Structure formats: C-alpha cells, structure tokens
C-alpha cells in the first residue's frame, strides 16, 4: 500500500516537474534558460515534490534521497529499490528526447516536401506504418557548409521545425503570429536560444546518421504516435481534481 502511494506521489511529481520544465523553456528570456541546467532542474524538482508531499523543502530533500520500491525494466522486469530523485529526473531526459524527435521529424518532413530528399519505407511488408528515412549521403549534403540552415530550403525547414517545437512547448499563442494578407505569412518571435535549441538537435541527428552511415529513421510521420505529454498531462488533471477534492473535504 505504501509502495503504491509512493509510486503515485512520484508520478504526480513527475507530471508537475514536466509542467514546470516546459514553462521554464517557454518563458525563458535568456539563452541559458532555454536549456535548463542541472541546478535549475534540482530546484524545480524540489518545489514540485514539496507541493505534492506537502512538506518543507528540507524534508522533501531527505525523502527524495531515499530508495523506494518502484517498477523497473532493468535488469529484469519487476520491482526494485531506486533512488527517488533519479526516477524523477528521468522526466528531463524524456522531454529532451521528445523535443528532438519533434524538431527532427518536422525538419525531415518539410525538406522531403521541398527538395524530395529522403524516401518512404516501411519496416515490414505487412506493416502499415511508413517511415521517412534520410540516407547518410543526404545527411552529409545537408551538413556541408551547414546547408541545413543556411540554404534557402533548409532554412524554411528549420523555421518549420522551430514552429513545431514552439507548438510542443505550448508557446504558439505567444510566439507565433500570422500576418500579411489572408494571414499567409508566419512570423516567429522567439529568443536566440530557441533557434539554437532546434538547430543543434537537427545537427545532432544528422551527425548520428553520418557516423553510422546508414539510413536513419529521422521521422515517423504516418502511424499512431502518442504525444509525449499525453500521459503526464492526463495525470496532472487528476492531480488538480485530487487536490481540489482534498481541499473541499478538509
């Protein structure tokens, strides 16, 4: 019972931490804040955990350093003792990974539409999920003289990726405006750090493709793909309801 309660606590804390990190990236006003540092993550984690556990920050810190029984996949599926704050900090890694996949998927999709780079393939004959892959040579071509953001098509694709990333961190209403006749022109108002955040992710993916010299799965466009935030946001709704009920009751 206690184990289950701890698990729920941690899941709520993860949801709150994710929310805090996303808003941190969205409301960043300097380049350093766009990529949260370990110190920032620690502070956010403490405040999120303190909000869920309803204890002071020093008590929370002690609790987070204890080992708790949690479900794990390695070395075998089952329960194991895990340090609580390790479990919480995985949120940042998941967020990073999903931001990369969102940015790269948008970039590859757009560059495929514009320049016809990449090819569609499916993992097996019976599979209906199709994957757009860039070959190693195409990645080299895009990396040469940084064509992926200096070249005209590459820059449009990067802007598309930037817009998608901003959408992912829910900043579209504040950072993207449509103007001109018939609202045809899009203007992205963001900080320098946001642009660098997108371009380094795309560059990283290309470098990985080049180093392996094999076709990389840069984008999964067709097929059911759950957004990363769906489960966590779902939990957050529960958390708000739960706290509201508690407040109403006591």
């Amino acid at each position, binding site marked *: 019972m206690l184990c289950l309660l701890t698990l729920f606590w941690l899941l709520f804390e993860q949801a709150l931490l994710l929310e805090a990190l996303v808003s941190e990236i969205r409301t960043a006003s300097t380049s350093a804040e766009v990529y949260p540092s*370990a*110190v920032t993550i620690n502070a956010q984690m403490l405040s999120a955990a303190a909000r869920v556990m309803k204890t002071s920050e020093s008590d929370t810190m002690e609790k987070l350093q204890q080992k708790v029984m949690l479900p794990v996949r390695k070395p075998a599926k089952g329960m194991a003792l895990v340090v609580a704050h390790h479990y919480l900090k995985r949120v*940042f890694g998941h967020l990073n990974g999903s931001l990369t996949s969102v940015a790269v998927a948008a970039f590859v999709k757009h560059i495929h539409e514009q320049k016809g780079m990449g090819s569609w393939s499916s993992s097996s004959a019976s599979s209906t999920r199709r994957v757009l892959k860039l070959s190693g040579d195409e990645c080299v071509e895009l990396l040469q*003289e940084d064509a992926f953001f200096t070249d005209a098509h590459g820059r449009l694709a990067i802007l598309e990726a930037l817009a998608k990333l901003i959408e992912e961190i829910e900043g579209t209403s504040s950072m993207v405006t449509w103007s*001109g*006749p018939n609202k045809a022109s899009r*203007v992205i108002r963001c*900080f*320098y*750090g946001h642009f660098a955040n997108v371009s380094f992710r795309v560059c990283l993916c290309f470098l990985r493709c080049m180093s392996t010299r094999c076709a990389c799965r840069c984008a999964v466009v067709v097929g059911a793909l759950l957004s990363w935030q769906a489960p966590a946001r779902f939990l957050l709704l529960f958390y708000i309801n739960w706290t509201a009920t508690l407040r109403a009751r006591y």
Partner: protein
Amino acid sequence: MLALLHLVSYWWWLSVNGFGLILKVRSYLRARAGLPPVTVGHGVLNQGHRFLYERELVFLHDVLPKDAVVHDGLQLLDGANGRRHLVDADVAVVAAAPAAASAPTFPAIAPAAPGTALPEPRADVILPTPPQAVRLAPLPTGVPVLPCFGEGLNSIVRRVPISCASRSCLFFLSLSVRCRVPLV
C-alpha cells in the same frame, strides 16, 4: 624459460584484467584526489546535451542577424543583445535563487558539480571560424514568409502573391506612410 613463462602469463593477465583494473585504480585515485571523473556524463544525472547546445549558441552568433527585426519570418527578440550567445550569465542568476543552496547536497550531483563544470565560453575566446564565411542564402521567390521589414512595404508587394484589391490597399498604405498622411 621461467622468465619467458612469467612474461607471457603477465601479458595474459594484463590483457584480460589489467585495463579494467588500471581504470578502476585510476578512477579511485582521481575520486580520492578530488579530480573530475574521466568519463564525464555517465550515469543518469549528467548534463545531457547542454554542452552541444552551448557550442551551437557560439557558432550561430556570427550567422544569425544581429538585430531584432523580422528576417524571413523569424524575429529574434534578443537579437540585438551582444551577449546572446553566452551562458555564463546564468551562474549568477541561479546562485541567487534560494533553492540553489540546497541543490548541491544531492549526493549524485555534489561531486560532479565543481569538477565537470564545462568551460564557459567567454567573450574573449575566439573560436576557429569556418574557412568560408557562413551566409544565409536568400529565400526562393514566392515563399509566403515576411521578408525584412527594413525593405519597406514594396518588397511585400513584390514577394507575396496577393490579390489585386489587397495590393492596392497596400499601395495606399505605403503612400500614407511615406507622405506621413494619417489614414483616418
């Protein structure tokens, strides 16, 4: 003969166990001496790709326009800031935060924080620039993206395919802007 056997067995022992052992001894000594670990960024609590991000910030500084006006559909709000590519400013900000004092007490972070601190890029550090100056290529014509506002409204008229009515509207607008005539 015995010496040769000794040598062979020693070689075998070294090749099988030696490197791992040496690494362990080295890492132990380094840890005891308070030096940063050799394998930076192992484990679950590393800095992620932050270093790559910082490198990208420095690299893009010379490429992206250094002003805060709209260029090809992108406006950098801190574009005119000369320190936009530096991240050492956040050290002071974070140190002032109340939670920062308690943060380093986490056991996994505490030994790593002073040692693995990445060299912060400074203003006086000159990175090797690419052989040819990186330039942003002009966008193809007909792309529905707002160009630089400095060029004036004529460029919008030229680039964006719009209907005749809105074109004439824009023409009057540009006239009123140029002749400083109030619209209403």
